[in-house]
């Protein structure tokens, strides 16, 4: 009277699900995700093996804690966000209209960093007590001083890159702790102010299409 086939089917599904979940939990954190392709630029992108999925047992080569920082330039014209992971940093400078730069580099053990980006852009900063990064950005002939406080989700640094109907989109967003967003969306190399993202999900509508901006890590 009782057939066991359906139960076995359910059980197999459950096992597959748990197996996938454990795979995700152990190997996650390193690949692109739904609907967003990884940014095309980073040749500095690390081989996945150097990344440890769990923060604790790995021999941490840097005393710098992994964290995100976001703030404004002192002249209030632009925003700066820095994301630190395992002694490496990626930063985004953005005025919300047409001037932006992605910068990368290493963080020294004393918390100082010198990040560089395209076109000679340079960020010099120092991490103070793990609470904020202050420093300078030189970009396109301009010189800016900034202070970026530690950012708690959903504030932080987001990026979305995608190709929609053969148009290349590259968007960067800094979500500040008061909730305001500073972002630029580049379409086929032409920058313009970015539409707002939903900071909870990263969802953003671009040219009528739904994209997802993801938190940026070096």
């Amino acid at each position: 009277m009782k057939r066991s086939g359906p139960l076995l089917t359910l059980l197999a599904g459950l096992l597959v699900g748990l197996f996938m979940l454990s795979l995700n939990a152990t190997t996650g954190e390193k690949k692109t995700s739904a609907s967003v392709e990884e940014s095309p630029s980073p040749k500095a992108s690390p081989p996945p093996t150097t990344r440890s999925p769990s923060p604790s047992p790995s021999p941490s080569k840097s005393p710098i804690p992994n964290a995100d920082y976001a703030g404004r330039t002192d002249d209030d014209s632009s925003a700066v966000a820095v994301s630190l992971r395992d002694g490496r940093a990626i930063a985004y400078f953005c005025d919300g209209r047409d001037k932006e730069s992605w910068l990368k580099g290493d963080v020294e053990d004393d918390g100082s960093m010198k990040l560089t980006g395209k076109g000679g852009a340079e960020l010099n900063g120092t991490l103070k007590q793990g609470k904020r990064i202050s420093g300078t950005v030189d970009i396109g002939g301009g010189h800016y001083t900034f202070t970026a406080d530690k950012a708690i989700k959903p504030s932080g640094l987001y990026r979305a890159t995608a190709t929609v109907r053969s148009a290349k989109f590259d968007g960067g967003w800094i979500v500040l702790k008061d909730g305001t967003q500073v972002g630029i969306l580049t379409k086929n190399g032409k920058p313009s102010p970015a539409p707002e993202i939903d900071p909870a999900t990263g969802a953003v509508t671009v040219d009528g299409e739904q994209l997802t901006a993801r938190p940026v890590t070096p």
Partner: protein
Amino acid sequence: MTVDPNAATQGFPSPPPDHHRPSAARYLVPALVAAAVAVALGVYGKVHDPAGTAFNLAGFSSTGAVKSWLATVAIFFALVQFTSALMMYGKLPGPSWSSTLHRWSGRAAFLVAVPVAVHCLYALGYQTYETRVFWHSLLGCFFFGAFSAKMLLLRSERLPHWLLPIVGGLVFAALTIIWLTSALWFFRTFGVTT
């Protein structure tokens, strides 16, 4: 059921409670399990912080592409399901092995759908920020609940003849809408890409 002719007159009122309980459990257990599965998935997706990322398969540009193709495979098997079900119920001429086909295409569809759901719930979570996303989230949870109910109902015999087709139809309809709101959307947005 055996009937004692001597007890027939007074036996009538008392048996129903006895026979009623197992038959009520026949529906109640699948229904409760279905509700529990659907709610548990939804709560997990809502409560846990979406990871945003998950591992990807080699050869695919993004997990979105992987999921869309897996979901499309699931939909294909679901169509096989629908057809083979019609054969089993004699609505379509079919081979004698149509019930085996139904069983195994169902298993295949389910097992292919599971990794997709795991990724959805792990990396993206239960979201409601858009109509498409809302229905996808809701029906995604509903699908696995309804499927569990369908599997459990299969274990009881003497069900009303309309029950399995209804539940199966619900499962099929849910999966179709899930596919329309995810894979089809993905292919239309990003192109039919791997």
